């Protein structure tokens, strides 16, 4: 009877949603990384996880890497034992789509420190999280609960290209420090800024 009931309930499922809510469970996913290995979010339970949507040719992303802002955020994450997942949702043929070898080369040439660079060429994970821009950042705590989503810092908006990013208020660093200290995350949501994610059309 119970099985029957579950079957009945399952009949009503039709998943259409495309966003995540801070302080609720982050949706699970599994993607291939730049070494061809399958990486799933659930395997990092017990660790805080940062998701970074990227597109290396996007001028916004380029500035964050050129100034060392992204790397210094990754550095803080590494020191705290936080898992950093860089996700590329660019569809083949669009800006930011790279082959695994190129992705690894970008990691080393930019001295980036992600734990994995993941490929989401169909855009399913990006759309599930409502990732709109590159960069677009998410911080998930060790219980798998989303604690922050939005921009990496408050430098977005008019005049971004002239701003000194190292002076900006880095929301991701703040969130990581607060989670590490067992505090509630003070800025839970911010407006993401950057280039549009180049989803498959």
């Amino acid at each position: 009877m119970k099985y029957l009931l579950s079957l009945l309930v399952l009949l009503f499922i039709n998943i259409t949603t495309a966003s995540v809510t801070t302080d609720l469970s982050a949706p699970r996913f599994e993607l291939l990384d730049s070494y061809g290995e399958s990486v799933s979010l659930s395997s990092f339970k017990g660790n805080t996880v940062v998701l970074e949507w990227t597109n290396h040719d996007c001028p916004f992303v380029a500035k964050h890497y050129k100034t060392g802002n992204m790397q210094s955020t990754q550095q803080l994450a590494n020191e705290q034992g936080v898992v950093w997942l860089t996700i590329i949702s660019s569809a083949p043929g669009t800006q930011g789509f790279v082959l695994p070898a190129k992705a690894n080369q970008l990691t080393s040439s930019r001295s980036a420190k992600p734990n994995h660079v993941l490929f989401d060429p169909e855009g399913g994970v990006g759309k599930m999280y409502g990732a709109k821009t590159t960069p677009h950042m998410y911080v998930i705590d060790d219980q798998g609960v989303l604690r922050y989503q939005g921009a990496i810092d408050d430098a977005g908006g008019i005049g971004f290209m002239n701003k000194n990013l190292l002076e900006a208020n880095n929301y991701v660093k703040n969130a990581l420090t607060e989670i590490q200290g067992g505090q509630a995350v003070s800025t839970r949501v911010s407006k993401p800024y950057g280039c549009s994610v180049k989803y498959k059309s």
Partner: protein
Amino acid sequence: MKKLYTNRLNLRLALVLFLICFFPLSTLSNSYFNTGQSSVTLLTESNQIGGEETLLVGLEFKLSPGWHTYWENPGDSGEGASIKWNLPSGFKASTILWPGPERIPVEPLMTYGYEDKALLLTEIKSPKEFSNPVKISAKINWLTCKDICIPQEGQVDMTLIKGPKVANQFTSKLKEIASTVPKNFPSPYRVSVINEKIFLQFEKEGSRNISEAYFFPSEYGLINYAADQKLEKNDNSFSLELSSAEVQLKTNTLKGVLKLKVDGIKEFYALDLPLEKNTNNPLISISLLTGIIFAFLGGIILNAMPCVFPILSIKILSFIEQSQGSKEKLFHHGLVFSAGVLTTFLTVSALLIFLRASGEAIGWGYQLQSPWVVSLLIYLFVGIGIVFMGNIVLGSSFGNFGTLVQNQKDLASSFFTGVLAVIVASPCTAPFMGPALGLALLQPGLQSIVIFLALGIGFSLPYLILSIYPQLLSKLPKPGEWMQTLKQIMAFPMWASALWLAWVLSSQVDMQSVFAVLLGALLIALGLWLLEKTQNSASILRRLTLIFSLGLMIFSIWLLPITSDNNSPNLKNEENAFSAQKLSSLRSEQRMVFLNFTADWCITCKVNEAIALDRDKVKKVLDEKNIIYLKADWTRKDPEIASMLASYGRTGVPLYLLFPSQGDPIILPELLTEDLLLDFLEEIN
């Protein structure tokens, strides 16, 4: 002669050089900048400026065809241009006067900006005294985008001369663009937030031909940029329906630009007004402890609800019989029954949480929005009635169908009776349950499991107590013939429930499908009767009947309607049907509203309607006090109603809201009486 000519030529050249040096022609030469993908030109309405004057200047962006640059709020991605003016001391530049933007969709996102070209205006104010000439320059950063974005940077400058303003070839162009910079909206407008929808209502006299309207928000976190905006017209009043942002930030104002297409001509207006506080998501929630207590009380009361009562009264009969046996065994049965109840509640809660997490707007009783479930329950209720009426021993050969037979002592039977009791309870919401379930489902996690556990414990408590103290039943007569009679009597409430479910079904699907389900119910009855008739027969005959009966039941399952038919002629389209839009406009007119959330499958709702809501006295008071009655019928799936319920911390019906002319609504109790309702209605104003 020849020499003179040369001299004259030199003189002419000198004159030209003089003119070039001192006239605007030369000063315009640096006002143009080209990056390859786009160019910028600095335009001015006059090359002369006097003291304490305002000069309109503009940066004209020309982009390659198909490329765009962004508005102040770029939408989902991108960035608007930045202009940094370098002016002589005393001069001041305004912020950019952005002309009305256009939508530039980048599937699945939405951005706001200007395609192919843009003219961004700035007003420059001069001081009283300044020295001649006036050198102004601007450093510009902008993005030129198509599918990719290229950051651009450039500087333009210009020299102005002190003197009265003189029009030039750009004056009219700049003035024309200035007229498209959004101005404050001239007519009354208001905004209200209802659930996930924001309604922008405005009047626009004399222009009934608004063919298009779009609101460009200035700030992030209020409105979903990519969602369609629906425009509805009523004479001179319009209502634009906006969807809330997927990720919301606290915003107190609705600020942005409204674009209208009036008689085919685009108009842009600036809007800025506070969001109506009292309708801004009045999420009413209770503490976890209150939730647990409510769930527990609700669980106890659920036992007395008409859908559950017959099943449980039969369960009591089996207790009476078992109370003759060992005390220990009886206690075990009580525990196992409770385990069945709790397991089912937890399974249902886990599924509900899972479904809500995947975005389904569902709640308690939601399963009855599916005609498939309603039909299966009809079969179940008819079947239970037949079992009550007859003498069928549904042994192990036929599965543990929540066996309710006296001599059945199997523990599994107690477990499945618990499961069955919860399933038949699903159409009922007892008092106290609404807020508790709302808390459980709207904030999923550990606490929702705790609340469902409390509900299950409350539900099974009477049986646990009886199983520990069977002497409480000693006042009842000894087991005997009367139990058989009582069991048969209890078949009738079961069949009545089936009839009621058939009525529910009739408002979900067409008559033909209802008839098919009734036929299926008849086949089930026939199958069960055959099983009963042959239970003492030779094994071959018994097996044949079993196969035949199973065939009948499978056939009856095949008859089930799968989806609801939205074109069903029975579909209610009542005048007082709730819609967020209707409520919003009534609220903005400061009308008092009584809002009834109901569903055909909700017995509590129907009882309340019969004993209170539909009474003549109540109708009279509603009429006299001019309270508008709205009915939100949740018999079928309806995300609008589901989200409205959610904003009051509920996931199920009934819910009664009484809105005064201003301020938050009163939430009425879930069990209404005529007097109680009249008290509320008379007090409201």
